[in-house]
């Protein structure tokens, strides 16, 4: 097992993350595993947006989604020695983010029995995004996750099946039912 370097680079200078834009994922991960701070920053910068969007789609609360995504990234990057850099990183990250978001959503639903994910103090979002978030909140979390992975993250059915740990057919039915339910919810919202 490759030992992590004890030395930690000086904080990256402005633009260093940009300089890594041409690095492949594998190169960045190897450098991060070897202790490169700038490589770690570049990984977060490269993968944050889509991961955060997935968590937001599942949870409906941007603050909680941000926490879940940060925790997921930290969990992975602090244990990179366990990751095979030959494997694609992003699907693995999304799997962890999705599962954590789903776990969080389930736990919240059991504890709070809330009917909507929109928190009273949440900054108002321009329509129709707020309506969409509310409608997503009405879906069972399993359907929500499948729909988010399909349309927010852009994954195919096979990839979603791997991420969620279910059969391909299950993914298809969850997406179908999720879309149907979303349309009903949005029609009800609009009267």
């Amino acid at each position, binding site marked *: 097992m490759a030992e992590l370097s004890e030395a930690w680079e000086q904080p990256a200078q402005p633009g260093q993350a940009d300089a890594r834009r041409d690095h492949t994922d594998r190169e960045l991960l190897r450098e991060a595993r070897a202790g490169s701070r700038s490589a*770690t920053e570049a990984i977060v910068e490269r993968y944050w947006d889509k991961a*955060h*969007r997935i968590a937001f789609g599942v949870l409906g609360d941007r603050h909680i989604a941000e926490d879940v995504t940060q925790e997921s990234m930290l969990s992975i990057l*602090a244990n990179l020695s366990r990751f095979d850099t030959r494997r694609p990183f992003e699907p693995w990250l999304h799997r962890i983010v999705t599962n*954590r978001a789903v776990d969080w959503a389930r736990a919240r639903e059991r504890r709070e029995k809330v009917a909507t994910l929109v928190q009273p103090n949440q900054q108002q979002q321009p329509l129709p995004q707020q309506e969409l978030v509310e409608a997503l909140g009405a879906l069972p979390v399993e359907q929500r996750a499948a729909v988010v992975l399909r349309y927010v993250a852009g994954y195919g059915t096979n990839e979603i099946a791997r991420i969620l*740990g279910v059969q391909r057919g299950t993914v298809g039915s969850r997406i179908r039912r999720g879309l149907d339910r979303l*349309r009903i919810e949005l029609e009800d919202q609009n009267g």
Partner: protein
Amino acid sequence: MDESTLVRALTVLEPPELEAARARAIEAVTAGVQRARNTRPKDASPSRGRTLLVASTVMAVLVGFATLTPPGKAVTTWVGEGLGIGHPGGAPTLSQLRSSWLRGTAASGEPAYVLATGQTPSGGSYELIAYKNHGAKEAKPSSEYCFELDLPDAPSSSSLDCGVFPNSGRIYDNGFGGGVGRAGDETFYTAGRVGRNAASVEVEFNQEALNVQLQRIPDEILQGLGIEPAFKFFIAFLPDAAAGGTVDITARDANNNVIATTSAPIPPLGDLGPGIQPPAGSPE
């Protein structure tokens, strides 16, 4: 709203102030990784010089399956190596907690070793643990070692073959040495040991096929401990098993012939049983 409009709206869904969140994450995650590196425990060698008796373990069905995470790193040498805590061949991450949980049981004071590690779906880690269990009523007569699954992030420790700990249930027979465990209310899994002759393992929970992680335990570790016969370890995480259900496991050989199969009910969350409770005042 027609479906195409709905799909378009979904594809552009994003939280407010995404860029600001990204900037915060770069700083927070990088700082967190640095803290984790600075507080990483020093490597510790497991106890040496113990007499390792030849032990025969319960042969369970082995089903091969592509691992979702890299298998536990092979230990190229056993004797004389300094092996890290929480790594195959080393001491469990939960050594201190395990000592308190095991106090008063037949396993109290026995050394424990990590055989394999992996990741849970939520990004945490698990460790397959082996320890000698002398005289426990639950231990099978032919088994010198007992096997458990630790989830250091929970933290939790569940029995697979013998010994009883909080939040664990033993439900398997018919050739699968293993059981069902949970960490808190969230993480359910079924795990067990299987022989090396099986080529695939299928696990279904309420008739829904699950991803299965399968790891071959390195010979160096098993031989170093005197665990025979060699085996593989499988684990599948159950989605939302709080309401209970049924787990079906099937092992097949390289020719796709069924070697063994079992079907076991999983009781609802509250019925899994407390097992042996940690002594009052033990650390959480």
